[in-house]
């Protein structure tokens, strides 16, 4: 009875942001941040840190310890922690506070969200100068702790924080999605679990698992409930399916491409298997882990950062003990269309710094941000879930390697499913990808998931999913998420296409008139010259 459904939609935020932040332009312009020559230790600085945890006390304890340790190193900096369990709520609160000039100093966030924050001037601090500052930059000489050098941050993860020609964040933790499988059920159905799941395999086994007895109970578990395949984050589902199929999602400039033939094909497939009782989603039915642990699910796709909830021996359990079933659990990458070339999403929290009037305040924020990248914080936090540290120094540290080698020693710190999930990402880091970041990319992400949610709901309600349905769905979703209003990130140039004919004609006329004016002037001068001679 623990995790809750508190879902914050970001649907309207883009609209709200666009209007409210534009309104800010005239109100309160922040000046660009410049790195001070030295950090003033004679003054007290109080910084606010908005952090996200996965409803996991170990994570909040690590934040608190990191703050305490940092404050010991820098006694003139006080860090005030505000905890969230939902990225959407942080996003909403940041947007609200941008308009009032009361943003936090340091904030856990997604790059998609930062792209919206950038709608205001100098709201988020670009980090290049801070990275390279000899004294206080990454690995800087004046730091009171071991900070990673820039090349010690996993380059791929760091690049995920670069958009609009700047680094606006540093990665904090990385995860991907994994498929948590009731292997006992798969084998009971007569199948052998492959190392890399294919979508065909998932659908075939799920359809088989949806077979019922005459009394309405399910053949596989004898229970009244069985949802063979549940997906937690349907936006990721659609994004990964499109990527694996080589189909369009969006361009870097923010052109929406999701309404394509492949999407249609995918939605028909999802509709078919929803109809057979093989598929549902978190938003419609509940947490995948709860169904998996109750023996009511075969394939549960969730973040690797949700691994501690998966399995009958999981350290975190959300259902009554009497509902737990005993089964063998397996962890695999998300299903693939081309198992030889697996592709999966890279996700996880990043950290951004908000600009303030006092550059010293920003420098204090940067010092704390760097501290969160230190080995001790990275390894400690990564161990709380199926995360991986974002620095090579932490990944290769003796402590972390020892941790990885001890999978299964207990069902707590060394819980095997959790370590398998982390290992999955480490092994497939080269197979991960991220989607383009632009103002509105968060909305596009929501929209892509909404397509699946709507189709799934409609099939369950007995509605017909056909071409006409999909046409209406596309139109509704595009309108709802304002997909026609999306834009490239601040600071980047957008290709606006060729000039319209009227503009060309107008410019031509202007040029012609000025040629005539210059011609006249030249003519009159020549005349005068000739007269004088």
């Amino acid at each position, binding site marked *: *009875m*623990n*995790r*809750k*459904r*508190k879902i*914050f*939609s970001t*649907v*309207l935020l883009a*609209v709200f942001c666009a209007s409210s932040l534009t309104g800010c332009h005239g109100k309160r312009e922040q000046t660009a941040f410049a790195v001070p020559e030295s950090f003033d230790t004679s003054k007290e600085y109080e910084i606010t840190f908005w952090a996200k*945890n996965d*409803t*996991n*006390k170990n*994570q*909040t304890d690590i934040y608190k310890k990191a703050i305490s340790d940092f404050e010991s190193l820098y006694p003139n900096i006080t860090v005030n*922690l*505000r*905890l969230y*369990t939902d990225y959407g709520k942080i996003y909403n609160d940041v947007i609200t506070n941008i308009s009032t000039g009361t943003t936090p100093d340091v904030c856990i966030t997604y790059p998609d969200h930062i792209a919206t924050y950038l709608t205001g001037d100098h709201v988020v601090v670009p980090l290049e100068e801070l990275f390279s500052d000899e004294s206080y930059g990454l690995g800087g000489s004046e730091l009171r702790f071991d900070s990673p050098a820039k090349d010690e941050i996993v380059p791929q993860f760091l690049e995920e924080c670069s958009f609009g020609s700047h680094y606006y964040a540093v990665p904090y933790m990385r995860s991907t999605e994994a498929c948590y499988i009731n292997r006992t059920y798969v084998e009971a159905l007569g199948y052998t679990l492959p190392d890399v799941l294919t979508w065909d395999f998932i659908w075939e086994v799920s359809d088989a698992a949806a077979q019922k007895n005459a009394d309405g109970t399910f053949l596989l578990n004898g229970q009244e409930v069985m949802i063979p395949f549940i997906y937690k984050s349907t936006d990721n589902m659609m994004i990964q399916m499109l990527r694996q199929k080589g189909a369009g999602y969006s361009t870097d400039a923010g052109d929406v491409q999701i309404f394509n033939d492949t999407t249609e094909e995918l939605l028909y497939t999802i509709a078919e298997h929803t109809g057979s009782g093989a598929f549902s989603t978190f938003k*419609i*039915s*509940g*947490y995948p882990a*709860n169904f998996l642990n109750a023996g009511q699910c075969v394939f549960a796709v969730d973040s690797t950062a949700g691994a501690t909830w998966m399995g009958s021996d999981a350290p975190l359990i*959300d*259902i*009554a003990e009497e*509902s737990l079933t005993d089964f063998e659990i397996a962890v695999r990458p998300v299903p693939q269309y081309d198992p030889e070339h697996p592709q999966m999403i890279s996700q996880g929290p990043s950290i951004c710094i908000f600009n303030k009037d006092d550059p010293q305040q920003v420098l204090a924020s940067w010092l704390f941000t760097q501290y969160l990248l230190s080995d001790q914080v990275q390894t400690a936090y990564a161990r709380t879930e199926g995360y991986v540290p974002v620095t090579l120094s932490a990944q290769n540290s003796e402590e972390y390697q020892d941790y990885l080698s001890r999978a299964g020693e207990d069902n707590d710190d060394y819980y095997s499913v959790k370590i398998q999930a982390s290992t999955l990402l480490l092994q497939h880091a080269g197979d991960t990808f991220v989607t383009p970041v632009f103002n509105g990319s968060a909305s596009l992400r*929501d929209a892509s998931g*909404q397509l699946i*949610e709507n189709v799934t*709901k409609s099939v*369950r*309600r*007995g509605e017909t999913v056909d071409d006409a349905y999909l046409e209406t769905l596309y139109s509704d979703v595009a*309108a*709802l998420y*304002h997909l026609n*209003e999306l834009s490239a990130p601040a600071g980047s140039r957008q290709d606006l296409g060729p000039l319209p004919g*009227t*503009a060309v004609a*107008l410019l031509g*006329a*202007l040029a012609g*008139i*000025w040629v*005539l*004016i210059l011609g*006249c*002037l030249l*003519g*009159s001068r020549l005349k005068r010259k000739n007269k004088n001679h």
Partner: protein
Amino acid sequence: MKKLLSMLLVLSMAAAMTGCAGGSTSGTAPETEAPAESTEAADESAAEDEAQDAETADTEDVAEVMSYDEYMAADLDSQVTIEAYVQAKQSWWENQATVYTQDEDGAYFLYNMACSEEDYELLTQGTKIRVTGYKTEWSGEVEIIDASFQIVEGDTFIAPALDVTEMLGTDDLINYQNQFVQFNGLTVEAAGQDEDGNDVAFLYSYDGSGSEGDDLYFNASYNGETYTFTIESYLCDSTTEVYSAVKALEIGQTVNMEGFLYWYEGVNPHITSVSIAE
């Protein structure tokens, strides 16, 4: 020559101003789109104007209002229309309201129902509403989603708190799901431990991972069995009396409570008042 030059300059300015005018034409685009934007001002499952449409549809083609028994007998994912009285409001967000409703026979939890901010203000305790939406179940909680509503003028009803203390731990309890209930004579038990290892009477979030303003969790026992109760922070935030009352609880105290019989993978009452038993 001067005349010709002046003429050309005027022409040039006129052309330039035409360019400016072109800018203002493109600037009107957002204005043209503004109505669409405002009609889109709703969340994924129910836009406000869709709600309006639904309301109109309701009045034009009135769906038959189900009794509570008919509602309970209806299949999951089927469309339902019910009439009930607002008992409490949990939240409003982006034109969606989550509301606890009840009639004389049973209760209905309305999750993310299409509702403008103005209409939300009208949903005072006791107000009768007609709701059309889809019956669904989320982690054991039977509720109505993707719903629209209209206020039904006339009578009002505030449900008395039904004493379900003796039903705790029984299979019968689920039959009162979502109703306004009371629990009497329960003993406060430890909810967990603080950083120093001392037992505490409540936790921020279920495991203590939260902070002020988050949901509160506390345990209370009856007849030797311990049950978990929640202060749902959207329903009763940190400024409410009950939030303060729970923070002041001491292990071993005997308490009486009222709240809504919410469900999440089992009973998960959303408590609205706590008092120390005399």
